[in-house]
């Protein structure tokens, strides 16, 4: 080892140079966590069962249509539980034909029960299919949210799947968390449903809606009193057109009222369907429903061939912008629920950074002075090693794009305390060897080699705890584990390798030296 002085010096120089290169300029290279730079951390739970339910219902609808097309009378098709479908038939003529047809139209279902006398067939979605739908719902949800966030314009967002059906969304530097959350969390299921004007909604409320229809509400807010009123509408259960047929959406301003509204362009098939729908229903009202709330229910005055619809409803400019975004990005395949939210304002983040820097500087200074005071020249070497440790720690974080969080700052402070521990271990050992009568050279050799085993031991135990913490942790806590582990690992290089090198350089040629500044 002693003969490789040149190579060892070169290694240290290279490491320092590479670190400095990675780290420059610090403000751009260090990735700050949301708790330091401000922003939103959201964990969304995708209600995957709802996606399965919707898929089962859609399958039921298409089965019903197909059966009727083949002249088999269907009384009702119902979803039972999450995955079961109950088909009730009107006195089936040929039972075998019925079963074959059902098998043909619904290949992804298993038959649970077929009661010829009652004319009832019960089906259940194949388990593998259910799992597929769930998986797809999460993946599509992730994609849709990513689209929305991109269009909203957030710098460096992070959107990832977490566990089986959770989505982690991190938006740094967002100023208006409520708006961002509304934008991300909205299902945005757009439906155009014909209003059933044969029955008064009030009457339907009393007696229950007639079959095939449902009651939905429009929320109207009185602008002066801010009072909210719910107006009921009786609409067809089946949507005539949905948001799937939307090609694009944008905000426009009404020339007369100067209120913003959202203009929706359908794709080719949607445009045709819309033209047909308006043609067949002139004079009737069409409800525009978003996530189960009626936005407006304008009367159809004439056939609309342009394939363009307008959604009005007293929006603010932000609301209209966001609605256009979610309509463009498409609906979430299943509703999402906020399971966890952590929002930090920019001012708190700035305070945390300031206090964190003060704490790190103060503890560095204190440990510096202590080492200098207690070990004199050797203490100076340890101090330089400590400085090197901090440099490498930050450079590795920059190089791996690790995130510095507030607990991460605590990890750095702790590293400062623990990194010099390694030097203390070695120095105490050298002192002991000197007291035992060894020469300076011998004491240094023995000190480093004997202490090394202990140093490794102490590092391993802290690393074990750090690894478990990293495995377990979320965001900020992970940041703590990261800085702690890097700091501890780096101290092997700085406190052992680098310190040894300096000792060798200082005392190597001096075989007759009798005192050591330690």
């Amino acid at each position, binding site marked *: 080892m002693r003969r490789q002085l040149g190579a060892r010096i070169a290694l240290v120089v290279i490491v320092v140079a590479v670190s400095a290169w990675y780290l420059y300029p610090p403000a751009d290279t260090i990735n700050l966590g949301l708790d330091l730079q401000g922003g939103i951390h959201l964990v969304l739970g995708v209600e995957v069962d709802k996606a399965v339910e919707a898929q089962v219902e859609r399958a039921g609808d298409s089965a019903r249509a197909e059966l009727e097309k083949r002249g088999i009378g269907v009384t009702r098709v119902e979803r039972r539980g999450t995955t079961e479908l109950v088909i009730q038939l009107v006195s089936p003529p040929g039972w075998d034909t019925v079963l074959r047809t059902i098998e043909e139209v619904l290949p992804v279902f298993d038959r649970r029960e077929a009661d010829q006398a009652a004319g009832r067939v019960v089906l259940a979605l194949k388990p593998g299919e259910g799992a597929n739908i769930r998986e797809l719902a999460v993946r599509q949800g992730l994609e849709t949210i990513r689209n929305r966030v991109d269009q909203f314009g957030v710098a460096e967002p992070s959107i990832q799947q977490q566990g089986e059906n959770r989505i982690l969304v991190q938006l740094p530097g967002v100023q208006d968390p409520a708006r961002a959350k509304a934008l991300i969390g909205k299902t945005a299921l757009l439906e155009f449903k014909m209003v059933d004007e044969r029955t008064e909604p009030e009457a339907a409320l009393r007696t229950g809606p007639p079959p095939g229809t449902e009651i939905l509400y429009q929320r109207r807010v009185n602008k002066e009193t801010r009072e909210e009123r719910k107006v009921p509408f009786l609409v067809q259960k089946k949507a005539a057109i949905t948001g799937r047929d939307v090609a694009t959406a944008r905000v426009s301003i009404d020339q007369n009222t100067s209120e913003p509204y959202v203009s929706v362009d359908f794709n080719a098939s949607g445009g045709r369907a819309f033209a047909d729908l308006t043609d067949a229903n002139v004079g009737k009202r069409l409800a525009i429903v978003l996530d189960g709330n009626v936005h407006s229910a304008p009367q159809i005055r004439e056939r609309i061939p342009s394939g363009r619809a307008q959604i009005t409803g007293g929006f603010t400019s932000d609301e209209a912008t966001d609605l256009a975004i979610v309509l463009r990005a498409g609906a979430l395949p299943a509703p999402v629920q906020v399971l966890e939210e952590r929002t930090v304002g920019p001012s708190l983040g700035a305070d945390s950074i300031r206090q964190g820097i003060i704490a790190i500087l103060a503890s560095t200074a204190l440990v510096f002075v202590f080492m200098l005071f207690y070990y004199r020249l050797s203490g100076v070497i340890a101090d330089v090693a400590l400085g090197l440790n901090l440099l490498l720690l930050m450079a590795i974080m920059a190089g791996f794009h690790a995130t510095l969080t507030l607990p991460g700052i605590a990890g750095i402070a702790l590293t400062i305390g623990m990194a010099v521990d390694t030097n203390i271990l070695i120095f105490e050992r050298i002192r002991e060897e000197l007291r035992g009568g060894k020469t300076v050279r011998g004491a240094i050799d023995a000190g480093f080699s004997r202490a090394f085993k*202990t140093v490794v031991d102490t590092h391993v135990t802290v690393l074990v705890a750090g690894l478990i913490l990293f495995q377990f942790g979320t965001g900020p806590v992970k940041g703590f584990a990261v800085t702690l582990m890097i700091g501890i690992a780096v101290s092997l290089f700085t406190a052992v390798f680098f310190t040894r090198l300096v000792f060798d350089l200082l005392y190597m040629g001096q075989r007759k030296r009798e005192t050591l500044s330690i």
Partner: protein
Amino acid sequence: MIQLFRDPSFNFIGRRRWAYLISILFILVGVGSMVAKGGLRYGIDFSGGTLIQVRFETPVAVDRIRRALETVQMGDSVIQEFGDAREYLLRLPLAQLSSEEVTRRTQEALAKDSALGKHEIRRVEFVGPQVGRDLQIQALYAVLWSMIGILAYVAIRFDLLGGVASVAAIVHDVLVCLSAMSLTNREMSLAILAAMLTIIGYSVNDTIVAYDRVRENRAKGGRRKGESFEVQINTAINQTLSRTVLTAMTTFLATAILYLFGGKVLEDMAFVLCIGVFTGTYSTIYIAGSLIVDWAGWRDRLVARRKKAVAKA
């Protein structure tokens, strides 16, 4: 040369009964305070709920905030001063309301009350019941796994006895930290859990160092005839005392600075680190070392008794 201790020869192990007593008393007081306070307080990370940190332009009294919150049916919030009289933490238990609704209502209530002056919502944290439960379970696993990991490491590196004693010392440290938290009314949070896991990794360090020294002394043949295990451990602890105290001191200094200057958000975490570094060092000397001695002594007596029984027969 400045030296903390010059050839120290304190009789640590000999006074171990006192140490046991002190530890047990402190933990009893801590557990008592936990019981009296209805269990350890969990922060929203584990219990779920909504936390809002709000800063006013001018100092405000707690009553004023409560009255404002009462107007939106949120008078049952826990309102806690945070740093100074301009900054408060509002905490709401899990309820039917979503976090958006809670934030919106809070903002509305605070804005309506003109006496409160301007305010800024600086932090909102919402943890749903599912996440809270998940975190509780994961936290438990994290603590268990780290203990198993350390037990395994020490057992492989030295022997099972050392491993068990180290884990006993760790359990002691965790209990002391929890007691200190309960006595100072601090809440269990993710950051505190992180601090505790760190302490688990740190605390065992000194034990390893002392234990390693015992082995080294034996290898050197330094064991004089008739020297008991108790004396060996005590010697090792004394020989490594300077480094034990010095390393604890530097780490303690760093965490104490963090506690003093690191800001309110990190305060609890830094507090646990400080306590942990202290008790980690203490438990090395008294809990781990003493337990090894007591256990070895008990084992030797058992062996001796068996031998006697065999001899009689």
